[in-house]
C-alpha cells in the first residue's frame, strides 16, 4: 500500500472550478441571447452561430495540430469566442464571412500570441472590427423594415437606432423602449435582446465568473455621460439599450485575458470603455464605438493593471 502514497507540497485541496467549467458557464450564459437571436432573426442566425463556433473550434484544433501543441479545444474557450463573434454580427454577414472572422479571431488574435490567457486583445471584438473594416461595403442587417436603410450602416450595424438619434430623427420614429429591450430592432443578432443578455449576465455574476462591478461601471458611465451630453434621460436610456453595449459590458469587458487582474483595475477598465464608447458615439464618425473602445482599453490594460495594483499587506515601499 505504501508505494501508492502520493507526496506533494501543500495545498492538498483544490477548488472544483476549472477553466473548462468557467467557459461552459459563459456558453450557458450566452445561450438565452442565442435563442433570442434565432427567434428574432430566423434560422439564418442559428446557421451563423453554428458555422462561426465550428470554424473557431476547428481553427484552434488544426493550429494546435500544426504546431504540435497539446490540444486545448476541450477548454471551450474557442467555442466561447466563436459564439461571441457570431452574436456580434448582423444577418447581412455571409456565412463565409463568419468563417473568415472566426479563423481570424482564433489564429491571428489568440493562437499566434500563445493561446488562451496570452492574447492581449479580445479575439471576438478584434475580429468584429476586422470584418467591419474589410467588408464595409456589405450592408448592415435590418429587422422588420428598418426605416433607416438609406443611412450609413456597417457590419457592426447595431447602432441603427442610435444612428437615427445622431441624425436628428425624432424619438417617435425609432423603436419603442420596450421593443429596444426585447430586441425588436436592427443590428447584430445577439446584441438586441437586452432581456436575454441580462439573464445571461446575472447568471455569470451569480456563478462568480464575472464581477458585477464591471458591467455596472461600463453601463453607468455610458448612461451618465449620455445624459449629460444629451440632457435627456430617455435618450440616455436609448444609448444604454442601443448598440452592443449590454452584450459588451457583460461578455466582452469581462474577458479575463484582456482586462486587468485586480478588481480596481477591472473597474477602471470598464469606466474607460464607457468613456471611449460615448466619445465615439457622439463625436466620432462611426455610429457605434463599443468595439473600438474595448480594443483601445485592451491595449491599456497592462498599464491599468500596474497602476491599480493593491499594495501588499504590510509591505514597505520599494526604494527606487
Amino acid at each position: 500500500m505504501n508505494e501508492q502514497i502520493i507526496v506533494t507540497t501543500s495545498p492538498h485541496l483544490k477548488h472544483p472550478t476549472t477553466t473548462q467549467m468557467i467557459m461552459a458557464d459563459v456558453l450557458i450564459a450566452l445561450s438565452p441571447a442565442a435563442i433570442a437571436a434565432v427567434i428574432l432573426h430566423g434560422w439564418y442566425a442559428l446557421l451563423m452561430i453554428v458555422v462561426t463556433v465550428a470554424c473557431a473550434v476547428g481553427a484552434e484544433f488544426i493550429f494546435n495540430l500544426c504546431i504540435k501543441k497539446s490540444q486545448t479545444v476541450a477548454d471551450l474557450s474557442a467555442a466561447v469566442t466563436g459564439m461571441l463573434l457570431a452574436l456580434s454580427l448582423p444577418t447581412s454577414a455571409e456565412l463565409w464571412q463568419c468563417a473568415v472572422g472566426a479563423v481570424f479571431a482564433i489564429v491571428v488574435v489568440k493562437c499566434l500570441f500563445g493561446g488562451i490567457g496570452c492574447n492581449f486583445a479580445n479575439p471576438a471584438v478584434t475580429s468584429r472590427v476586422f470584418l467591419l473594416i474589410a467588408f464595409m461595403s456589405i450592408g448592415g442587417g435590418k429587422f422588420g423594415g428598418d426605416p433607416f436603410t438609406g443611412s450609413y450602416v456597417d457590419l457592426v450595424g447595431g447602432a441603427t437606432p442610435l444612428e437615427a438619434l445622431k441624425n436628428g430623427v425624432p424619438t417617435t420614429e425609432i423603436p419603442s423602449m420596450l421593443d429596444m429591450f426585447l430586441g425588436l430592432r436592427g443590428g447584430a443578432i445577439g446584441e438586441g435582446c437586452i432581456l436575454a443578455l441580462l439573464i445571461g449576465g446575472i447568471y455569470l455574476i451569480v456563478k462568480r465568473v464575472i464581477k458585477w462591478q464591471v458591467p455596472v461601471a461600463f453601463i453607468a458611465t455610458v448612461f451618465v455621460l449620455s445624459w449629460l451630453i444629451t440632457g435627456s434621460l430617455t435618450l440616455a436610456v436609448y444609448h444604454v439599450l442601443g448598440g452592443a453595449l449590454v452584450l459588451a459590458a457583460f461578455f466582452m469587458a469581462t474577458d479575463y485575458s484582456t482586462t486587468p487582474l485586480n478588481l480596481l483595475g477591472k473597474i477602471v477598465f470598464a469606466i474607460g470603455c464607457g468613456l471611449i464608447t460615448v466619445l465615439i458615439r457622439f463625436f466620432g464618425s462611426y455610429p457605434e464605438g463599443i468595439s473600438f473602445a474595448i480594443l483601445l482599453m485592451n491595449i491599456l490594460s497592462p498599464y491599468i493593471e500596474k497602476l491599480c495594483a493593491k499594495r501588499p499587506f504590510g509591505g514597505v515601499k520599494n526604494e527606487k
Partner: protein
Amino acid sequence: MFRFGFLGNTHVPHRKNTAQMSPIRIEPPKEVLLPMCQHIGAPATPIVKVGDTVKIGQKIAEASGYVSSPIYASVSGKVSKIENYLRPDGRNVPAIRILSDGEMSVYEDIKAPEVNDLESLVAAVRESGLVGLGGAGFPTSVKMDAVKKGAIDTVVLNGAECEPYITSDTRTMIDNAAGVKRGIEILKQYMPTVKAYIFGIEDNKPEAIAKMKETFSDAGDVFVAALPSLYPQGGEKVLIYNTTKRTVPEGKLPADVGVMVINVTSLAFIAKYIDTGMPLVEKCMTFDGSAVASPKNLIVPIGTSISHIVECAGGLKEPAGKIIFGGPMMGVCASSLDEPISKTTNAVTILNVKESTEPPVTACIHCGRCVAACPLSLNPVAFARALTLEGKEERVTRLEENKLGLCMECGCCSFVCPANRPLVQNHRIGKMEIREYKTHLAELARAKESK
C-alpha cells in the same frame, strides 16, 4: 493603511466532522520515535544513550540554543536506537527510538516548576518543551521573551482553527475551558503590561465561542472575537489585523506592534505545566480525511507512528492517497505510515486517492482569482511572470519588488486556480532563489574582502 473589513476571503470546505467529539486516549504504542527537531530552530541534543531506561516526562534531549526546545520521553521503556530521521521538509536530524515497556510509568522527579516572576515563567515555559501547537512550532518561550521588554500590550489567543478537518483547538476550548482560564490567569499575574486578551475564533465554532464567552463573562479585559469563517483566519498577520486592526509590517514581528499570538491549546498546556510540571509528551490531534473510516479526536503520545494511530482509530475505508501532518491546506505530506507524529502535529489527515490525484495543469487564463484570494494582497501572477525571466538577478529583483517575502504559503492562490497552476509551489521556488542569491552575494563579498 485603511482597508475594508476583514482580511482573508477564500471559502475552503470546513469538513469539521469531529467538532462534537471529545478526544479519546489511544492505546499506548509499542515504540515511539522522537526526532530532535520538532520545532523551528536548532535541533535538540540527545542526553541519553542506547540502553538507558526512561520514563514518561524524563528529559531525553536538551535545547541547544536560544531558539530551540528540549524533548521528553513520551513512553516508559528503553532507548533502543539513536538513528537518522529524514524530516518531511528534507532535513536530516537525529531521532531517539524508545521501546515501550508497556507500563507507561511516569518519571518520579516531575514537580511543578517554581514561578514567581515573568523571568521564571519564561524559563519554565522553555523547560516545558512547548512550541507553537498551532502547527508552526516556534518555541513559545522565545515569543514570551519579548514581553520582558515591556512592549506587548495585547495577547491574541488563536482559536481560529481555519484548516479543514481540524478540531483539536475547538475541543480544547470546549472540554478544557478551565485550563484556558487558568492560563489567562497565569499570564495576567506575570504580564502586567498586557491590557487586553482577545480570543480570535472562526464563527463556524459557535459552541467554542459560547463557552469562552461564558468562561470569561466577568473578566473586563478578555474579549472573544467571532471571526468570519474565511481561510486563513488563523494566519498570524491575518489574525492580528482582524482582531486588533494592527498591521505587522514587512520584516517585523508581532511583538513590534505590541502583540503576542498564542494558540489556545498552547495556553492550556502552559497552565497544566505550571500546576503539575508534566512537560509536553502527548498531543491532542484530529484524525480525519476522506480515506478515514471513523474520524476522531485522539490523545496520542508524541512519537507514535501513524500506522499505530490508524490501527487504534478504526482504520481506513479506502486506500490512502496522501498522508498529511496537519490539515490539507498547509499540512506536510508524510512519505509513509511509519512516520511519527511530533509536537506540532494537530491532525493527521489521510486523503483518498481521488482527492490526492492532482488535476492536469493548464495555461493561466489571467482570471485574477489568485489575486483576489490572497489575504495579503500579493500578486501570484507577477511572481509566476518573474520566475520566467532570464537572468537570476532580474528574477530575484522582480520577486522582491513584488514582496514575495510576505507570502505565508497559506495556499489560497493554488486552491482557487481554475487552471491548477502550482502557485504556492512556485513561491517556494522563488524564495529559495532569493536565499541562494543572497548567499551567493555574501560569498562574493567575503571573497573580495579576503583578497
